[in-house]
């Protein structure tokens, strides 16, 4: 490739440093009156196919990142995070009792439930609001989503094991563990409000 001449370099630097798109006339005035059209054409050709392009919009020239790379300007990053103990409990309660209000969730858990916990479950796509209960105060009620069933490989909520099965599996027995969990519940809530 041939080295750009001084005028091309000057136009390139001027447009690079410019704080807004510039007309050919403005560039020319900035560079002491030189005719910059050929330089603009050469630059546009040079940047063709690169990650940066020289474009003309409404007679004004500016550099921009190549349109096919626009996704680089705004990236999404996914962080994999484990559901907290408290959020898991709330999810389970919604799944077993839906539709259920927050007050009912708290009554079942026996622990106050941070607002953030339900937000996390909704962000995860597993819980949705399902209208309001027609009782005084018209509380919002929550239910699980098809994504919840899909994530846990369930055909329907009927596939959730019943209380008897849980007991048979020893999951209703560990009272000591439950006490520990109860003690930890406060800490879990704190985590969630962060999340």
């Amino acid at each position, binding site marked *: 490739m041939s080295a750009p001449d001084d005028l091309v370099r000057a136009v390139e*630097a001027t447009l*690079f*440093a*410019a*704080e*807004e798109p510039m007309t050919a006339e403005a560039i020319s005035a900035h560079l002491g009156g030189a005719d910059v059209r050929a330089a603009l054409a050469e630059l546009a050709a040079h940047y063709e196919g690169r990650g940066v392009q020289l474009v003309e919009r409404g007679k004004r020239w*500016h*550099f*921009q*990142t190549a349109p096919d790379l626009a996704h*680089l*300007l*705004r*990236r*999404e*990053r*996914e*962080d*994999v*995070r*484990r*559901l907290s*103990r408290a*959020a*898991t*409990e709330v*999810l*389970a*309660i919604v*799944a*077993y009792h839906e539709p259920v209000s927050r007050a009912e969730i708290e009554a*079942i*858990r*026996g622990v106050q439930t941070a607002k953030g916990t339900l937000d*996390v479950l909704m*962000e*995860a796509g*597993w819980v949705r609001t399902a209208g309001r209960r027609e009782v005084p105060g018209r509380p919002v009620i929550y239910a699980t989503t098809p994504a919840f069933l899909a*994530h*846990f*490989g369930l055909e329907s909520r009927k596939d*959730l*094991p019943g*209380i008897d099965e*849980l007991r048979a*599996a020893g*999951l*209703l*027995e*560990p*009272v000591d*563990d*439950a*006490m520990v*969990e*109860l003690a930890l519940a406060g800490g879990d809530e704190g985590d969630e409000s962060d*999340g």
Partner: protein
Amino acid sequence: MNLDLGPTPGLPLTGGEEEWEGPASMPSEDSALYLELDGWEGPLDLLLDLARRQKVDLRRISILELVDQYLVYIERAEALRLELAADYLVMAAWLAYLKSALLLPREEQEDPSPEELALRLQMRLQRLSAMREAAARLMGRDRLGRDVFRRGMPEGLRTDRRNRWQCDWFDLIQAYGQVEARTAPVVHVVRDRMVMTLDSALSRVSSMLGVRLDWVELQEFLPQHVDPRLRRSALASSFVAALELARLGKAELAQDEVFGPLRLRRVTA
């Protein structure tokens, strides 16, 4: 805050950098000398300037000559009654000491030797000079925002973070099991137990009072030879019965000391 400090017009003779009032507040008889004195940042700066006037490499300057030049300057400034900051005078005193030490016979020298002190002074001047030169070279470089420029209108990069939440089946089921286990209703079973009701205690105590005239301890109203649990119930009920009788004016209560035996007797009208 104003960053554009610019070159300060009257560089201080004082140790600080802001207090110097500048030439305007000074008498102007010998302005030529004054202008020379103006503009030094401390005694080391003045020394460096004097050393440079020897027009030799700083490593080859004559310290004795430098000391003399400095002392002459200070004397002239004092003669003009220019207000010299203390550190200029301290430096003058130290240089005078150094000079006399350098002129003394060698065997009387202490450690560090005056030659060593002179060398250190020379090193300090070199150091200051080097930093001054370095500063000038730094300031003269192609500076970002003055000589070279970054992109004027960068699009900017943004990263939106999303959480992908993880939870597995066992955790879910176990969590529910624990909620259930934790909140299962607790049933309290109260076993049937023998009690003495207040009514029966009341009739028992009042009938027994009716046959006694003297003080009687509450203990004596209790049924003997019974289950200890019934005894406790009887004691409680009898005590309440005694209070009730006292309230009705049918009995008097007495207790001589705290936790002492409670005694009662019939009120004879």
